[in-house]
């Protein structure tokens, strides 16, 4: 056991108190803590005051809004996401992604907000303190070197939340609270710098996730070392709308291969309105493989992670085809 250093836990009950607590120097949002607590004990994360979101009712709700969209509070647990009728009905790919996270207990504890805001991961940093003691401090820890990509000027640690590509493929929007509330598409949330990977200002938090009305058909796939527990070594989600006998407006996202999800525009162009033969899906997968440039900072070997992307995308696209056939279209 590596004990946590002294800190305060703050448990606000309402929105105002929450924002006030978060505005304090050293305050950090605490979702389920399934990532933050191990991170603190390994001296990877910092924070003098952990502001728990669990007691704020507005963050725990899953609401169907009048316009047909769904608003998912950031503190809703992944287990709840995975079994909620609204999600299972209209956004099954999100339920699949939520179910692919960690294990049963981690999903009961981990929140969707924490999954979206999850710290990036890297084999040269996500190690116990002793392991790093004699290693030169890297960008993410405030130093000026990257062990994974020595030529890089920024951190290339891996965005590892499983729900991210699914939410991106579905066209989800994030609702941010802070000095002023704002909304942005999830794919704009990630900066591409693994050390400061999400665009949240001090005192801001992710409050809710908005899932669109009339969502496209979507599918999620994950590649990892074991069938359970492990973080993704690569994951992918795709979506498209079946209209007039063809798939339109495809969205193809690959994640867990760098600090931000990668949108594979070339594959989308290839797929839009085309005849989705097995070969075409393989070709789209191949385009995705070429579009990603992982570094060797995951658990599995980098060449393998890149090759796996081809299969992930091809299979996810195949899942869309299967979903269509099941619905008799």
């Amino acid at each position, binding site marked *: 056991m590596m004990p946590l250093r002294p800190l305060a836990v703050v448990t606000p009950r309402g929105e105002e108190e929450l924002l006030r607590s978060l505005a304090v120097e050293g305050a950090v949002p605490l979702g389920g803590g399934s990532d933050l607590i191990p991170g603190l004990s390994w001296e990877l994360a910092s924070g003098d005051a952990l502001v728990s979101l669990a007691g704020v009712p507005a963050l725990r709700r899953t609401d169907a809004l009048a316009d047909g969209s769904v608003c998912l509070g950031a503190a809703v647990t992944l287990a709840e996401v995975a079994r909620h009728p609204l999600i299972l009905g209209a956004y099954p790919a999100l339920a699949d992604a939520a179910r692919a996270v960690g294990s049963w207990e981690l999903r009961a504890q981990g929140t969707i907000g924490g999954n979206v805001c999850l710290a990036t991961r890297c084999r040269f940093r996500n190690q116990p303190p002793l392991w790093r003691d004699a290693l030169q401090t890297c960008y993410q820890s405030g130093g000026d070197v990257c062990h994974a990509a020595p030529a890089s000027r920024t951190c290339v640690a891996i965005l590892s939340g499983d729900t991210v590509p699914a939410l991106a493929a579905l066209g989800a929007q994030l609702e941010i609270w802070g000095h002023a509330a704002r909304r942005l598409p999830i794919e704009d949330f990630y900066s591409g710098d693994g050390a400061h990977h999400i665009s949240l200002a001090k005192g801001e938090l992710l409050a809710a996730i908005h899932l669109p009305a009339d969502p496209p058909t979507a599918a999620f796939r994950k590649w990892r070392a074991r069938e359970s527990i492990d973080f993704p070594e690569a994951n992918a989600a795709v979506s498209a709308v079946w209209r007039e006998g063809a798939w339109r407006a495809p969205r193809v996202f690959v994640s867990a291969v760098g600090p931000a999800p990668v949108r594979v525009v070339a594959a989308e162009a290839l797929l839009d309105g085309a005849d989705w033969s097995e070969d075409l899906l393989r070709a789209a997968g191949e385009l995705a493989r070429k579009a990603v440039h992982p570094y060797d900072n995951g*658990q599995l070997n980098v060449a393998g*992670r890149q090759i796996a992307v081809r299969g992930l995308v091809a299979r996810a696209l195949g899942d869309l085809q299967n979903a269509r056939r099941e619905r008799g279209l």
Partner: protein
Amino acid sequence: MKLEASARQTAQAVPNRIESWAKVTGQALYADDIEWPNMAYGCLVRSPQAHARILGVDLAAARSMPGVLAAIEGPGSSAPYGIMPSNQDEHALAVDKVTYLGEPVAAIAAESFRQAYAAARAVRVEYEALSPVLKAGAPEKSLPQVREESETGNLHKAVDLEFGDVATGLQTASYRREDRLFYQGNNHVALEPHAVTAFWQPNGQIVVQSATQVPHYVQRSLAKALGVPEHLVRVMVPTLGGGFGGKSELFPHEVAAALLSRRCGRPVRITLSREDVFYTHRGRHPVAMKVETGFDAESRIQAMSFESVLDGGAYGSYGIASTYYTGALQPTTYRMGAYRFHGERWYTTKPPCGPKRGHGTTQPRALLEVHMDRVARDLGLDPIELRRKNLQPAYSVTVNQLDITTSGLAACLDAVERMSSWKERRGRLPYGQGLGFACSSYLSGAGLPIYWNPLPHSGVRIAVNRDGGVHVACGLTDIGQGANTVLAVLAAKALGVCLERVQLTTQDTATTPVDLGSYSSRVTMMAGNALLAAAQHMLSLLTEAAAHHWEVPAEAVARDGEDFCVDGGGQRAGWTEVVRWAEAELGPLAASGGYTPAPPRGRHKGSGVGPSPAYSFSACVAEVAVDDLDGRVQVKRLYVAHDPGTPLNPQSVEGQIRGGAVMGLGEALMEAQAFNPDGRHRGPHLLGYRIPTILDVPEIEVAVVGEPDPNGPMGAKEAGQGPLNPVIPAVLNAVREAIGVDLSETPLTPDRVLRALERRRREEAR
């Protein structure tokens, strides 16, 4: 819901574990669960460098921190020790250099663990970095020497054995083939991390409560390290949360806890973190191997030459034995005209390797069985048929002078062939699917102790009290494999009483006769035989007392259930009554027994490694599906057959077979104690070192075959280690069948499989 109270079980209905009730209710106490009055907490300061000279250790800052009671560093703190008598190369705390990342350098005791941890983080050590040494078998002069003691450069030990004329055997062979494999190292990952509490009492006695598989060796080594006579050290083992070889010698935290206790006058607890366990290691050696075999025209092995190069890590540990073991058991499955073995073990700046389930025999078995499959392919033979032509028979002597008694090997082959529908299905599965076969054998206890002596390997003392209770004392250690249960069940059976009468005292060096420990699958065989000897002695005391009482000859006294009676004579008395007669006559009743294996047949150097009173045999068929797109090797089903002699506790034997098979699966598919080029462990935690989850495990069909072995207690051999070995090559062979690619390195992780497939794709495109 009531347990079918184990206390009410009879000897006939064997419970899975006599202590299950404690384990399912949370009452079982493990080493980190026991609170001693006035206990202090220790923490080791470990090296963040893989290889460095220590220039200075500054404990001042740590000493002044809140709650700190004692702080110690290496020089002068303890004498060198080591599990092998010829390899006394370890210090609890590094003295002048560190040779792996994580090596203990200093130790702190404080009022609370938090305080000890904080103080340990505050210790400043100055190092002069040296280049890490990461590769075994590299005799480059430029590399720094890891241990001064090593033979030449970083070569720790080289061994050569030859039986018969291998050169001629290979030359005159009608077919010969050479194969190589690199077998990656791996850790035991017992779920319980090591923990110890040591109390250097003011009266000079040192009481140690530790999570160890070998209390006797810990007592011996600790006495040496501390410079005190052995009788002043008492080692007790609480409930142990798994071992698999990882808790089989004295460790730095055990010595440090004793030293800190002397400094602060209080019991000191040190519990390792999961990270610490990966640094403490002593797991399976990474081994690079080569085998060459010559066959005669009838496809029989004429000669075999086997070479292994072991990457030993920073210390000797069991390494010399491990090295010999990589050449010892090839001939126990296959008869061969001549056999040669060359083994080398090298020091590297990584955590020391040692024994893990299957000690040293797992790696060569993997290559040997892959090799046999490739031979069968070349010769156009069914892989199982090729083995059948070459089996070492029961009641025979192997080419390397090992005495085989019973052998269920042929029966194992038959069983997995039948269960898997091998004949109907092999070679007929679509691309991406395959069946693979392998077989193996293992020891039921090493024939010789680690340090030479003429004393029993195991001792049992039975006392029977006037309350009718039977008290069995034995130094054996239950590491979760069920050794206590076997002992209790055997005692009940041998004495003809119900299990509820039996009370055990085990795993405590002060109150029990010595048993060497839970390694090399020796416990059932050796403690079992010792128990039978003691029980026989006790029974004769009681029988004679009854005979006296009834004034009949002892031969006339018979048993009916627990009762004693005289056949046809009408005399009858209950167990307790006879016990009282005997105690009245003889005083308090005690009987003891010991077991020493027969001396080995071989007289050559190295002949001490390999002999065993009996060998277990196993075979496995693995059925796999390899996913072309994601590289995942999905083992769909395992068929495992094992010959454990008499299965004394069938449910437990099944559990050992399943557990061993799944551990083998982990080694085949995912586990790697691997290092970065700078000497850092790739991930000293359960996300960086991955073991199978419940979702990674296929259904396993188990067959238990074989017959009672004359040397085993009531015919028993072993099941704890053997069933692991064939699983790995069976999976490797099945993957070859499925995708037609020979992989030359374990484990078969999906990235590795994908890369191999991609390579082939590119080659085919060219």
